[in-house]
């Protein structure tokens, strides 16, 4: 190889083990938070009544920066991008994905403000997250009869959402009810998607930022979930809520595109959460199979078990590489890419379920006990595949990308 070529190859070499400095520091801080603050409470958080919420825990996460990781530094954020968010959420999710989702849902609520490019809106809402007290946000898309059909543009006409907006002077009036909204019970504001009155389906979908202390906002009962019990999912009702027109993101009827951009941004981080669940289950399986002896040999030395461990490890690594690539692309492209985040989430969600299930199996009776925590991972893994796109919807997004014309650059 000639010298010039050798140098250019060396410069272009990928390093999969070293994250950018600020991202690595933030990941380490999140890891310490997970180990020192979340881990001692994780069983209690899982077993408390559905409506229980640990603000003290959130306060610790806030001080680490988990509520403002993606916010630019000029508005008091950390500016570590989606790569920082995703790697940090992997660390938190490895201990408690429900806690990770509290911060992930906040990022999702912030995303339209970040995308707006509107300095007045950003100055109004983003500095909220850099005060002494923790502030959370949420994203309100899903309704009783509408969810994924608000994500797929070709289904917009047939969407059955009923939350509507109508213009009245300098305000929009929002009416309707959202369901399964993570953080709705505890958020300061919501990113809300409502259909312009008179537009069929979701063809008039429009994005708004709605402070949740406005008259007419009602936070509904908390859903009693199978997993993810550290975070609260609840209804959010809008009874003729008057929202200032300047809180609209973009333009009337452009909500579908905003929602897609927001989802594409967030999916890399959700894939990080799934990877955290899978990694944690793998670590438990490795520990157990390294100490348990059967027939005079450790489980890890028995070929059938070894094959399972090897498969689990390869899947966890692949999930991580996919989400790192997706997060890096999200940090360097606008509009956010469709394919990489969707493929990362699709794979990582399945990996979390498969690895947790295999770990549960390898631990035998212990896997079925609450005290070992693997059964919780199984329950949580089943939840991750629902929010920010089910496998079925992600498959559509991935497949559409396969047939889409490639962008010219």
């Amino acid at each position, binding site marked *: 190889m000639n010298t010039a070529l050798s140098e250019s190859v060396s410069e272009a070499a990928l390093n999969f083990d070293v994250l950018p400095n600020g991202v690595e520091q933030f990941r380490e801080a999140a890891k310490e938070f997970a180990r020192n603050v979340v881990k001692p409470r994780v069983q209690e958080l899982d077993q408390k009544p559905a409506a229980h919420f640990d603000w003290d825990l959130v306060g610790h996460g806030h001080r680490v920066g988990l509520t403002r990781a993606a916010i*630019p530094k*000029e508005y008091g954020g950390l*500016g570590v*991008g989606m790569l920082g968010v995703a790697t940090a959420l992997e660390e938190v999710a490895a201990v408690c994905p429900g806690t990770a989702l509290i911060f992930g849902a906040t990022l999702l609520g912030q995303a*339209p403000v*970040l*995308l*707006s*490019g*509107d*300095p007045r809106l*950003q100055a109004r809402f983003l500095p909220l997250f850099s005060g002494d007290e923790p502030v959370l946000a949420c994203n309100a898309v899903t309704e009783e009869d509408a969810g994924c059909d608000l994500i797929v543009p070709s289904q917009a006409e047939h969407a059955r959402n009923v939350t509507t907006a109508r213009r009245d002077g300098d305000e929009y009036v929002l009416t309707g009810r959202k369901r399964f909204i993570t953080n709705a019970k505890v958020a300061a504001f919501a990113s809300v998607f409502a259909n312009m009155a008179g537009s069929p389906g979701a063809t008039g979908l429009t994005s708004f930022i709605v402070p949740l202390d406005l008259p007419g906002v009602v936070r509904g009962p908390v859903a009693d979930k199978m997993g993810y019990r550290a975070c609260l999912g609840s209804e959010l009702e809008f009874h003729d809520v008057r929202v200032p027109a300047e809180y609209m*993101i*973009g*333009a009337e009827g*452009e909500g579908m*595109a*905003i929602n*897609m*951009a927001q989802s594409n941004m967030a999916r890399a981080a959700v894939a990080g959460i799934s990877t955290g669940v899978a990694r944690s289950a793998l670590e438990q399986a490795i520990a157990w199979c390294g100490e348990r002896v059967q027939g005079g040999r450790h489980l890890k030395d028995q070929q059938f078990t070894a094959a399972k461990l090897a498969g689990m490890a390869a899947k966890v690594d692949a999930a991580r590489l996919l989400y790192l690539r997706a997060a890096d692309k*999200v*940090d*360097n*492209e*606008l*509009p956010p890419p469709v394919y990489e985040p969707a493929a990362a989430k699709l794979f990582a969600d399945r990996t979390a379920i498969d690895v947790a299930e295999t770990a549960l199996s390898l631990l035998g009776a212990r896997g079925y006990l609450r005290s070992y925590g693997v059964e919780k991972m199984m329950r949580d893994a089943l939840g991750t595949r629902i929010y920010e796109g089910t496998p079925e919807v992600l498959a559509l997004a991935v497949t559409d990308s396969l047939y889409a014309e490639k*962008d*010219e*650059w």
Partner: protein
Amino acid sequence: MSVFPSSEMAVKVFSSLFAVLLEDDDFVARARQEGLSVRLVHTKPDCEIFVAPQGLRIGEEQAGPAAITLRMSCDTAHALWMGQLMVPVAIATGRLRIRGKVAKVLELVPMLRPAFDRYPEIAAAAGIAA
């Protein structure tokens, strides 16, 4: 049909626009501090402009490596600067495509205010319809 009849006209209007930014001391100071350089690739008609604190360069061969590259049609650019198309909508619908650190892009957008304010006047002076 594009609102810009020729590449020359697009170059004239957009280079005047970015000259406005380079007259803005705050923009230049921030751009220098952030190491900000922007390559704007306009299509239909083609027009490429490189903006850095040191000045403007016109044409593909003049463009150096930029921290941020923006690609859009001249019609999209016109609608954006006129305030007829909102930035998030342009981005979300892919009419404006950007490569570069998104964090830098998010910082850049509010700094463009002087250009938004002046564009209608610059376009009108060049005979470009609203």
